[in-house]
């Protein structure tokens, strides 16, 4: 004997699975209820916000090896741009966009550097902001992700291992490349090689890869310049002296590039850990040269 069971048919719920929206980064299809893209793990809220505003945001990529200071730079930049009465201002779109500056400044206030960005793309911080410039009456939508350095170099060594990075490098309108100024000063060639490798890859995957000299603006920033102050005096000369390979690649392959120096911590101390390593401690927050590369990039993109 069959006994019927009354089931409520919530068919309307299926609609959100049927709906289709393209990821802002990799441009592949996703369902409307997806939190992160099922292809590249970029947050789908970026796509929803772009769709609701009916504007295509510009994308900046901050690149550099692990430990170079990408998170600190981006967090500090966003905080300064959102707090300071300045020609260029940013205002966050959504709470998630404030997380990066909040975690960075909270760590610096404790005299610590923020934790290392995890390799998993769904755990990265993404900032979606509105950029207010004196030249444009309407705000400009801007997306900047804080990507992990290790993941970046895995992608460079093994292309398409991180779909999100591959798409970002292809799609980004401007690039901030961070280089550890202190390592260059100490004579280490690693930073030079890392950055050359990165720029070569960037040039290959860029939109205008057919062009010998890419038109995409690239701001090269010597980070931790508070510990090697000669960076501030002449960043281009510093690059020529301490990173000749990188300097030559930029001259040959990037039509719009410029060197900058930036520092967030006024001074750092070293603390020995029980593991035998050294931990760097920021002793105070004195941002220098943070906004200038971003301003230059915006000027060259918009």
């Amino acid at each position, binding site marked *: 004997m069959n006994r019927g069971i009354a089931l409520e048919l919530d068919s309307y719920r299926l609609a959100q699975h049927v709906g289709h929206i393209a990821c802002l980064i990799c441009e592949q299809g996703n369902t409307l209820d997806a939190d992160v893209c099922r292809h590249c793990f970029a947050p789908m809220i970026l796509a929803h916000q772009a769709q609701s505003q009916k504007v295509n945001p510009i994308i900046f990529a901050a690149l550099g090896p692990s430990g170079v200071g990408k998170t600190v730079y981006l967090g500090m930049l966003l905080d300064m741009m959102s707090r300071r009465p300045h020609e260029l201002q940013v205002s966050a779109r959504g709470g998630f966009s404030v997380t990066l500056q909040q975690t960075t400044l909270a760590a610096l206030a404790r*005299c610590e550097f923020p934790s290392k960005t995890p390799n998993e793309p769904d755990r990265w911080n993404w900032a979606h902001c509105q950029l207010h410039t004196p030249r444009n009456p309407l705000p400009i939508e801007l997306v900047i992700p804080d990507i992990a350095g290790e993941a970046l170099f895995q992608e460079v060594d093994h292309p398409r291992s991180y779909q999100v990075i591959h798409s970002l490098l292809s799609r980004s309108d401007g690039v901030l490349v961070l280089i550890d100024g202190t390592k260059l000063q100490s004579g280490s060639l690693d930073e030079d090689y890392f950055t050359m490798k990165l720029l070569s890859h960037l040039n290959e995957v860029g939109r205008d890869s057919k062009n010998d000299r890419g038109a995409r603006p690239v701001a090269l920033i010597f980070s931790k310049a508070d510990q090697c102050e000669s960076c501030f005096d002449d960043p281009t000369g510093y690059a020529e002296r301490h990173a000749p390979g990188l300097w030559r690649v930029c001259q040959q392959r990037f039509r719009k590039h410029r060197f900058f120096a930036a520092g967030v911590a006024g001074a750092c101390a070293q*603390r*020995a850990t029980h593991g035998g390593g050294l931990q760097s*401690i920021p002793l105070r927050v004195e941002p220098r040269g943070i906004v200038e590369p971003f301003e230059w990039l915006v000027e060259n993109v918009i």
Partner: protein
Amino acid sequence: MRIPKRMCGTLLSAYSTACCRRKAPAPEPIEALPEAVPDLPELSVDKPLKPAGEQSLIDEMLSQSRYALLLRPQIIGNLTPGQLIRTQAALADGMCLVPSGEVVLHPSADDEDGGNRFSNRRTPLRIDAYYLDRYPATNAQFQQFVACGGYEQLAIWDQEIWPAVLDFVDQTGHPGPRFWRKGGYPNGEANHPVVGICWYEARAYARWAGKRLGTDAEWVKAGSWPVSMAGHPLLERRYPWGDAMDRERANLWGSGPGRTVSVDQFPLGVSVGGVHQLIGNVWEWTADAFILEDAAPETNAAPQPKMKSVRGGAYDTYLDTQATCQFRSGDYALARKHNIGFRCAIGMCDLKNTDSSAEPGHLPQESPAIAEAPR
């Protein structure tokens, strides 16, 4: 006319630098100076007149803000009444008296939660009464030190730093602060705090002026102005003007022009005792070593042997929590930064007490030594 031998003996033996002028920019012969200083009060006929050379030397020291040397017990007896009055006036103009009492130094991490108005986490330190410069040392004042050949007088430099003194040059290779040119400060910045000097340069200047760098505890006491009430925890201010940040009162990131300003600007930021710009404009070297305070068990609080403590925040200090009386930062002793200056101190016990109002009972008792800040 030669400088009287007795005077030279006193000065040179106690402070070998007082008469030593190895590199004066425009050496003016002492013989050419006027024989009498017009604004001195008349001396009675029964008192011996001081030789003109001696007077001019004292006047010169007063013009160089080296009044603290003249008030030393070994020297003060050589001053005429008029010179004594002027010297004491210079002291009152240039320095503030901070009474003896207790102060608590917090770990910097304590400032995260908005500071501790009531200091009961640590044992209070007792420090003796002292004088602290009313303003940070200025370019004009430091120019006097440079012009007097301060960088050539090895006696005022720590012996350990002698090899490095030759490297303390400006942009053009002349002895002087890092950002100067041709031995002179930038135009229009005479009254700005001197920056681009390392800890050793600050210390040498202080010695030349007959003073010293203040300790961490002294600096905090001048700013937080603690009040001790029997049976209650020490009451301290978070900022010299009170407990709330007011960016109108200090040259910090976002509140000033983004560079150093004259030391007499931001007058609303004055402390209870009359000390200006303890917060903002430039960090200030103190005498103490900088040691990381760390409660985390997995790490070692490794001493930073080359680091010295700086306090007060600067024009580019970003966080309010790092521009408080209690916040301490540090830098390498040889660092010559764009935003670190200094101000000098001197123990009250180091000066000859000639002011009747400063007798015991009126002011806190003197003691032979200044308590040191905790390491």
